[in-house]
């Protein structure tokens, strides 16, 4: 994978995905299978 650096963004960058968010709540009527979890793990430290 190549990486081109950084480009400017602003808050408007994300406005068009906001209407998708209710789709997730609607999907909650469907069962969830498989792995789940939000536990924190794998802390890496710089000495």
């Amino acid at each position, binding site marked *: 994978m190549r990486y*081109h650096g950084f*480009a400017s963004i602003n808050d408007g960058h*994300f406005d068009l*995905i906001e209407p998708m968010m209710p789709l997730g709540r609607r*999907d909650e009527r469907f069962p969830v299978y498989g792995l789940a979890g*939000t536990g924190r793990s*794998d*802390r890496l*430290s710089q000495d």
Partner: protein
Amino acid sequence: MATGLGFLLSFTAWLAPGLPLAMFDAIASAVSIEIGVDYTLTVEPKISGPTQHVDDLFARGVTDVGFLCPPSYVWLRQPSVTSVVLAPLAPVFDDIRDQGRPVYFSDLVVTTDSPYRRFTDLAGARVGYNDRSSLSGYFSLLHHLDEKGLDPGFFGGFDHVGSHVGALELITAGDLDAAAVDANVLRTWRTDNPGRADRVRSIADIGPHPVQPIVLRAAAAGRLLPPLVRALSHEATLESVARCGITVSPRSTTGTSTSSNP
């Protein structure tokens, strides 16, 4: 350098190891050097970003800088929350579809020898998604279904599998038929797994999506933002990323992007 931030800067990468941890570590290191403090980098491999339903690590001051998926930023920027501030710079990857913009795509992945050729072939198929904070693996797929007047009941199963890489492992093992996978994660996985790279193919892409942002803890943003922008602007930072095994090309000249229409 006295910053009032204490002796330890805390970074959290919700996007690793699907995206290379080395990339986030290089950025964290550059910012910490710019400020003059040590840092920790915590990996959250099981979810693409905080959800509305879990503890807000930014509000509690547990983490100062986060690398996360766009839906989490949309949740965290709500007026009732506002625990984060958006960094004004975001990564640009070299996927030809990105056209030098801070965007990315989902690839709809199946096994190379599967009968699926297009999205509509997936009726009744076992489809997986990484997690419910993910734009590329979850929300983009729901949106794609919704645009066609469908819902996840169109698939034979719509299963939480924990990560993009987990989805790829299940697909190659024959335990899952398809998943929408972050295109940069797919390319990284193919590089890391050359013996299996040709066992999967993409039958469609979804995007462009706004690329994953870098966010700062709001309470510290006034002190963090200037050094973070300086650090991301240094050629040395890009060279540092390159030393982590990711090729760096000259800095993008792309301006502000507001397009996002998967």
